């Protein structure tokens, strides 16, 4: 479900890219009528798709001026590329769902997009910045505080553990810090409770992006890119070296098993193979459905001697961007839709049904009052991690060519874990190669 499925890799050719361009052209050229139609391109599948369709239906039924048409456009990279191609052909949809690593690209394309906050104000809709969960909305907000896109579905990195295995290995309390994780891992390994004490999904997201914010340190200069496109990586630091060095050592000792670059770790955990796991909070539903053991969720581990830790973690998922070049009446409809989507009832429903983070504090309070967290222990851990005031270092990551940078992080991590380089040279390579990508991005990005 949710984040990781829609993030799934997709086999697409350049030919299909062209087809998307054509399809984009066809989809929007509908006959004019009294009802203003609003195209909403998204990447949600299964139950999440059903929920979107249901939201659209309810919105359409509640008023008669606008008709929202949700269109599934394939995986995240697919719908983003399709929207860009459609924009270049002059046929962009009104709303497109873009995954978090596409944020800097969308933001740099001023003119191609309309900031959500401006949209709401122009349309005369009520908009209160302080209503939103800071670490969620902050990711999509400029340094001056203007919210650019609508944070529709967000998850964050949390820690899952197999209670049965921990008990068998004699670990009394679930580990909170990395030193407790490795101590528990050693016990699990030594007792033979599991051959795979710890694994992870999304290594870059967990061990670089969230890791830096959680320790209230910068991943890149210019406040992680929020200050401007001149950002460069700041990963050759003692803290990163310590963590990468630890990962390499734990892997060598068989305490940490590298699963892969995306969601491969999920199945290793819920199949019972690995005892402890870091990954997206949105995996909850899958774990609950598949795990044949008692499991628990707790906050992402950290190094307790680092001042400022734990701060908040980094979100993943996607937000809704409003494309430029549309009529004022259409934007009014989009604004009304966003007002509808951010109402506490809808937000609470979305949060409880999908496992994504609530967008507003009111939705969190409503969910808490309903007793949902007591009935589903652990579902509030992700919210607890996020519901703090963010700092300039922890607001989010706004780096261009982020897809390439993640690849680079994973490549160097794999080289390191295969024993072909040490932590220091892995981080030096990440910095050198990542900075090349950032410099390249900077040349076409305007603030």
């Amino acid at each position, binding site marked *: 479900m949710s984040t990781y499925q829609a993030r799934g*890799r*997709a*086999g*697409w*050719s*350049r030919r299909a*890219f062209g087809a998307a361009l054509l399809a984009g052209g066809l989809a929007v050229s509908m006959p004019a009528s009294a009802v203003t139609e609003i195209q909403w391109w998204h990447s949600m599948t299964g139950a999440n798709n059903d929920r979107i369709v249901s939201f659209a239906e309810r919105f359409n039924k509640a008023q008669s001026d606008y008709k929202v048409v949700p269109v599934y456009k394939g995986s995240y*990279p697919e719908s*983003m*590329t399709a929207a*860009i191609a459609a*924009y*270049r052909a002059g046929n962009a949809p009104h709303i497109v769902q873009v995954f978090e690593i*596409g944020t800097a*690209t969308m933001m*740099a*394309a*001023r*003119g*191609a997009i309309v900031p959500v906050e401006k949209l709401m104000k122009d349309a005369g809709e009520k908009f209160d910045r302080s209503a939103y969960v800071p670490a969620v909305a902050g990711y999509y907000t400029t340094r001056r505080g203007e919210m650019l896109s609508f944070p529709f579905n967000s998850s964050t990195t949390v820690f899952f553990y197999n209670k049965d295995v921990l008990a068998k290995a004699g670990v009394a309390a679930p580990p909170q810090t990395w030193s407790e994780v490795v101590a528990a891992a050693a016990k699990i390994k030594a007792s033979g409770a599991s051959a*795979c004490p710890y694994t992870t999904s999304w290594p870059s997201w967990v061990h670089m992006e969230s890791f830096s914010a959680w320790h209230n340190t910068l991943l890149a200069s210019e406040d992680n890119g929020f200050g401007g496109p001149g950002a460069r990586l700041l990963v050759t630091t003692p803290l990163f070296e310590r963590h990468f060095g630890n990962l390499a050592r734990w892997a060598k000792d068989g305490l940490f098993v*590298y*699963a*892969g*670059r*995306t969601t*491969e770790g999920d*199945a*290793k955990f819920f*199949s019972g*193979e690995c005892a402890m796991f870091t990954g997206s909070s949105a995996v909850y539903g899958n774990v609950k459905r598949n795990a044949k053991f008692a499991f628990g969720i707790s906050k992402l581990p950290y190094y307790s001697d680092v001042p400022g830790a734990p701060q908040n973690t980094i979100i993943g998922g996607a937000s809704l961007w409003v494309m430029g070049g549309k009529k004022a009446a259409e934007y009014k409809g989009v604004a009304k839709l966003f007002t509808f989507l951010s109402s506490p009832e809808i937000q609470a429903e979305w949060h409880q049904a999908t496992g994504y983070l609530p967008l507003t504090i009111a939705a969190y309070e409503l969910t808490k009052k309903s007793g949902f967290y007591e009935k589903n222990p652990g579902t509030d851990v992700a919210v607890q991690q996020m519901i703090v005031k963010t700092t300039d270092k922890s607001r989010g990551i706004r780096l261009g*060519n982020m*897809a*390439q940078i993640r*690849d680079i992080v*994973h*490549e*160097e991590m*794999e*080289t390191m*874990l*295969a024993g*072909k380089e040490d932590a220091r040279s892995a981080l030096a390579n990440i910095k050198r190669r990542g900075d090349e990508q950032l410099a*390249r991005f900077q*040349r*076409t*990005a*305007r603030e």
Partner: protein
Amino acid sequence: MFFYWPAAEALFQSVFIQDPFGASREFVGLENFRELFGDPLYLDSFRITAVFSVAVTAIGLALSLALAYFADRAIRGALLFRTLLIVPYAVAPAIAGVLWMFLFNPTLGIVAHWLGAMGVAWNHVLDGTQAMILVVVAAVWKQISYNFVFFLAGLQSIPKSLIEAAAIDGAGAWRTFRSVIFPLLSPTTFFLLVINVVYAFIETFAIIDAATGGGPAKATEVLVYKVYNDGFKGLDIGSSAAQSVVLIVILLVLTFVQFRYVERRVRY
């Protein structure tokens, strides 16, 4: 039209650095190319592509020829064999990649389990050589049916009288194959060689994407996968276009070489 237009477009895009929306675009001349060829990792991608393409083509052709040879000689169950061998062609490349990834999955995969029992620690998630073996196996498997059909047709068009004549002359099965059948099959083999090289170069990215994603490190990142990844996932159109141009040039040269030198040895 269907070749020249995209090729010209790629050539045009390759001299710019631009944002994905085309809002700001900077003419950079050959800088995209200079950057590529100044990158040791890109140059290494040529080596990986060569290893991958040679392995896929050679193993694919040899295996399907052997299968076709035996299917041609099979008396009972020939139809069943043929049908079963053609099935993989109907499987989408991405599915093929996922299928093999599951078979070789270090913890769940049955093949990985057998290998473990034989004393081979299989972990293609971190072992580059094993990852390469995995994508070669998946790519060969996907293409075998196509080759098989052509080889089988080629074999069936060889007059029985020639083979009988060879038998009367006292030639064994291997000798008959080498001196009579293989030369008569050479047009088919040549055609398949060209097709398979193009296949390995161009059409395998979906398999690689599903099976390894180019990793671990860059162990299975062939040229076409990098084009796809940088252009489609990374939205770096300039660099991706420059890489496409490089790929087109390589393919033109390879095809030229094949027609110029290999075809001489083909007897129609």
